């Protein structure tokens, strides 16, 4: 390694170090702000929540979905299993919307504490499996699936 090369290596390392430090600091600063949505419990801590457009994320509470006669307006509760927030939405729901599923609703909190959504998105989990397996897991007690080390079992024959 010639001195010229060593100088360049030091130069590149310094760039990397500087950028890394800058990125770490920015990320740290952003950490609190880069929130795509608030959970029902978090929503209570948001300042001036009534004056802002924000997103509410959580699970659709079991048994809470009620449709109005117009067929478009839907009432449901979004829960994080600690707190629940009632949501009203008028429009087309994504295919994955159902009770027990994750959703992210965008809209405003009104003065009665009802979240008036103008957009509802579905948020799914990281699990992928055939319906039969999901059914079997559910009957076994509904624990979260872990397929590690099972690459050889189950195989490809559905």
């Amino acid at each position, binding site marked *: 390694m010639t001195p010229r090369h060593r100088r360049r290596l030091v130069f590149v390392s310094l760039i990397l170090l500087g*950028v*890394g430090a800058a990125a770490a600091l920015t990320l740290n600063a952003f950490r609190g702000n880069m929130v795509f949505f*608030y959970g029902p419990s978090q929503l209570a801590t948001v300042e001036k929540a009534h004056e802002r457009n924000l997103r509410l994320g959580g699970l659709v509470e079991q048994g809470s979905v009620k449709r109005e006669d117009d067929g478009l307006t839907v009432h449901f509760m979004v829960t994080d299993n600690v707190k629940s927030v009632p949501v009203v939405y008028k429009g087309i729901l994504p295919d994955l919307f159902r009770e027990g599923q994750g959703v992210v609703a965008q809209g405003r909190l009104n003065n009665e504490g009802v979240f008036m959504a103008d*957009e509802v998105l579905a948020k799914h989990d990281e699990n992928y499996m055939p319906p039969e397996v999901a059914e079997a897991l559910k009957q076994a007690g509904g624990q979260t699936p872990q*397929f590690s080390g099972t690459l050889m079992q189950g195989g490809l024959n559905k």
Partner: protein
Amino acid sequence: MWLWIHKFGSPKYFYNVSGKILPWVAGATALLIVIGLYLGLFASPADYQQRETVRIMYIHVPSAWNSMFIYLLMAASAAIGLIWNIKLADIVAAVSAPIGASFTFITLVTGSLWGKPMWGTWWEWDARLTSELILLFLYLGYIALQSAFEDRRLAARASAVLAIVGAVNVPIIYYSVQWWNTLHQPQSLGVGMSTIHPSMLWPLLIMALGFKLLYVVILLMRTRAEVLERERNNAWVQELAQALVGKSVIGSANEYR
């Protein structure tokens, strides 16, 4: 070690060795992708929630992995070129950029086509999606910077700095789903963990390997062409050309028209 780098970094050595392995890698790539497509489209089941749309995963996830992997390789290669002044490393970095940009583009488009029916939106500014879009801009910026300079050395140096600086975006993409609340779901695969059923994991892994090798194939093809163009005045390229002209199989340059 330095000897080895310089030997492998020699364009002539690279051209000869890569010419020998390229057909084999290309064959393996085609085989893997055909198997992967068969498993992904025919032999694997629909998902319990996402039904048939889960088949988009078999191209979306391998493309996403490639988009990050190629960026890291490009940045590392650019850094090697910058420090040790190895021409081959500069070439590898330069030709990787359009390939990486292609995979990033595929990731974004297939993700959008998956997000619309499942999430209910083509696009949202969540951390995962946004950081992947930034990756595409980094690739495009790198390509633009490369072509902005007449002088190849200068182009390689300037774009190398951009590539190295931009590398911080890769861990941000990777960990975005853990660090922030995102619409995108968390990691399904990790060291020793998987929440994907084996019947779906197999086609995914085979496609991922196929896409990795496809990158290697395109990279080798482009690097070989670039090497010939840049070294055309060197003795070894002229000897190669003379040998090719001498062969009756090729005969004249017209065959390559």
